[in-house]
């Protein structure tokens, strides 16, 4: 695909359409016989579509399934159900060689560049590997020339070619990861927490690089992150995930202007703003308790155990569907209109905790195992 995608092209079929995607991981028990005692519903029925040349931002807390969703789209984990239609082809049904060919057009940028680059390969070898694997730019001379343009595109010096990943700083390593993922000129780039392992002053460099590359190469992005400010900065459309399903999807500006779902509101009000004047005056909605376990999600609306706007009826037993409240604004809440118009008032977190009793306790409640694997392992990398 080239950067000159016509408007008609954009109007037509989106580049990626995900329908009813589910990823369930079995929980196994037993010594001699593997019994499946339950499922972790990491992703539980997600629909989304991404237009060509746009950026879709996916936000949510750790354990909400956003990374698993990204991986399932690339078939790095096997989806349990649902379809992933990429440019007219159902990726979920492909196998073997056709799947490998298709991967050329969908690439991934990982969170931790030190963990995702082979420490024993130098940069030249790292960047030529995908080219050779797909038999591109025949001949060593062609590959060498291509690698130089790649380094140029991500702003690394040619001297980097002979060096190894550990010799670079975090930001430079992420540039290598990005160079590797755009080596095959893909159409879709899935970036899983691309900047969360980087220092504040370096984050902006990588965010700017991603934007610049998108403009130049006409890339389509799916950006997965827990940092709402970063996602808002680079995305056209933002989807908010909670416990395996989308709770809200809207154009970035609208979402931040007026969040409709109670969870989105709470999430947004929790992000600290680097300005003491704003910090002193802004409204905070504190949530009670923690994320419930995805192995044993609450009935009805999954957010009802922590929701300050929970109502006596419907919330506990009726699963809300993602519905279009206003043009391009999707929300899955029974009471979205009333909350928007201010008819319903939020309760204090202590009140919610009191009503829900034991439900707001940590994820360890109930007979379910609570290890890191079950709870989701995509926590941001800590810095010192």
């Amino acid at each position, binding site marked *: 695909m080239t950067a000159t995608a016509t408007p008609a092209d954009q109007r037509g079929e989106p580049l990626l359409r995900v329908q009813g995607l589910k990823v369930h991981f079995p929980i196994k028990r037993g010594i001699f016989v593997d019994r499946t005692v339950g499922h972790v519903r990491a992703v539980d029925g997600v629909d989304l579509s991404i237009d060509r040349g746009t950026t879709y931002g996916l936000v949510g*807390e*750790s354990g909400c399934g956003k990374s698993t969703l990204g991986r399932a789209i690339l078939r790095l984990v096997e989806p349990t159900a649902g379809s992933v239609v990429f440019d007219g082809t159902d990726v979920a049904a492909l196998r073997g060689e056709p799947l490998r060919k298709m991967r050329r057009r969908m690439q991934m940028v990982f969170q931790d560049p030190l963990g995702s680059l082979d420490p024993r390969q130098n940069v030249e070898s790292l960047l030529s590997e995908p080219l050779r694997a797909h038999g591109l730019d025949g001949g060593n001379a062609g590959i060498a020339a291509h690698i130089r343009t790649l380094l140029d595109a991500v702003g690394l010096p040619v001297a980097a070619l002979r060096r190894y990943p550990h010799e670079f*700083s*975090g*930001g*430079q390593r992420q540039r290598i990861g990005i160079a590797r993922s755009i080596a095959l000129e893909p159409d879709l780039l899935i970036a899983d927490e691309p900047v969360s392992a980087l*220092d*504040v*002053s*370096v*984050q*902006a*460099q990588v*965010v*700017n690089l991603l934007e610049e590359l998108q403009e130049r190469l006409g890339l389509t992005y799916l950006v997965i992150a*827990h940092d*709402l*400010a*970063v996602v*808002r*900065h680079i995305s056209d459309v933002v989807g908010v995930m909670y416990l395996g399903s989308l709770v809200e999807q809207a154009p*970035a*500006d609208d979402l*931040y202007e007026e969040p409709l779902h109670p969870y989105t509101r*709470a*999430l*947004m*009000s*929790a*992000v*600290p*703003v*680097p*300005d*003491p*004047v*704003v*910090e002193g005056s802004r409204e*905070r909605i*504190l*949530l009670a*308790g*923690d*994320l419930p376990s995805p192995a044993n999600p609450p009935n009805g609306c999954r957010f009802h155990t922590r929701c300050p706007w929970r109502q006596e009826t419907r919330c506990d037993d009726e699963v809300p569907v993602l519905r279009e409240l206003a043009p391009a604004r999707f929300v899955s809440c029974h009471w979205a209109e009333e909350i928007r118009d201010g008819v319903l008032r939020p309760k204090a977190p202590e009140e919610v*905790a009191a009503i829900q009793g*034991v439900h*707001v*306790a*940590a*994820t*360890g409640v109930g007979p379910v195992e*609570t*290890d890191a694997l079950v*709870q989701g392992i995509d*926590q*941001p990398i*800590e*810095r*010192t």
Partner: protein
Amino acid sequence: MSSGSSSISAPPVGLGNQPVLEVTDLAVRFTRRGEADTRAVDGVSFSVAPGETIGLVGESGCGKSVTSLAVMGLLPKRNVQVSGSVRLDGQELVGADAETLRGLRGADMAMVFQDPLSSLNPTVPIGTQVTEVLLEHRDMTRKEAVDEAARLLDRVGIPDPLRRLKEYPHQLSGGMRQRALIAMALSCSPRLLIADEPTTALDVTIQAQILELLRELVVDSGTALVMITHDLGVVAGLCDRVHVMYAGKIIETADRHELFARPRQPYTGGLLASVPRLDSPRGAPLTPIRGSARDTIAWADGCAFAPRCDSAQDDCLTEVAGSTVELVPDGPRRELRCRHPIEYPPAPAGATAPGAAR
């Protein structure tokens, strides 16, 4: 901010109070045979009054965590040289013997670490870990200690504390573990609490809960809080006074409002301009700082930030100017280490810095 009724008879928090913690010219050098010494902390001075919250801000490797470990006396003895002075209520801690420090840690000063899973013992129930502190420092029987531990867990917002006391750290979620750690830190009503990136490993909604908890504690008990973080948003909401660190030295000190409205050091300004903000219009380009924290020069050769600084000039280097860059007073309650700071037109009322523009 006012101190409520508490066992510590903290007078109304004024700035002329006797500080709880006074750090003067603290320096930490890591030595290794056959290699040049690493100056992780290089002449850091600050003080904290009762009920005051100060922030140490900086990127990875700027020495903020080493500073806190040096204050607590938790650095290893081998190959480490600590100099300068750390005074807790007038008592000198640098060079104090292990026994004295042991008596102070947990009782008069306490610390909350970044990663709650690795700072709790995974093989011991939470209850034992909390009561351990109480038995050590407050002459309690085991029965009293358990009651007190349950009360502490309840105070930091852990539901059903008696059941939780019997559980192991892995059975608690990240936010709960951090709360348990805070409960342990608070068990002897310390005069000084150091929180080293207490929310970095947590999600934003949990972070909001923990910050609220810390804010209440400072107000209720008049504890002096040292908050170590790289997140400017956290600083903006919590700290009274902010020290920005770079390459082991403090490069700018100011009250919170002053710092965010008018950052003077180009590094502080650069940090503020490079963070995307939730309340700024979308599409405004970010202005990153060039290079990375590795591109520094030694402070003896000039300003360590000069290689990355846009307003750096020749005299930022020692060999041109003939002297090193000093931390000098810069207006009321401000200090600055820079020869070419960001200038602002002298229009005081309602002026907003470019970095904080909305």
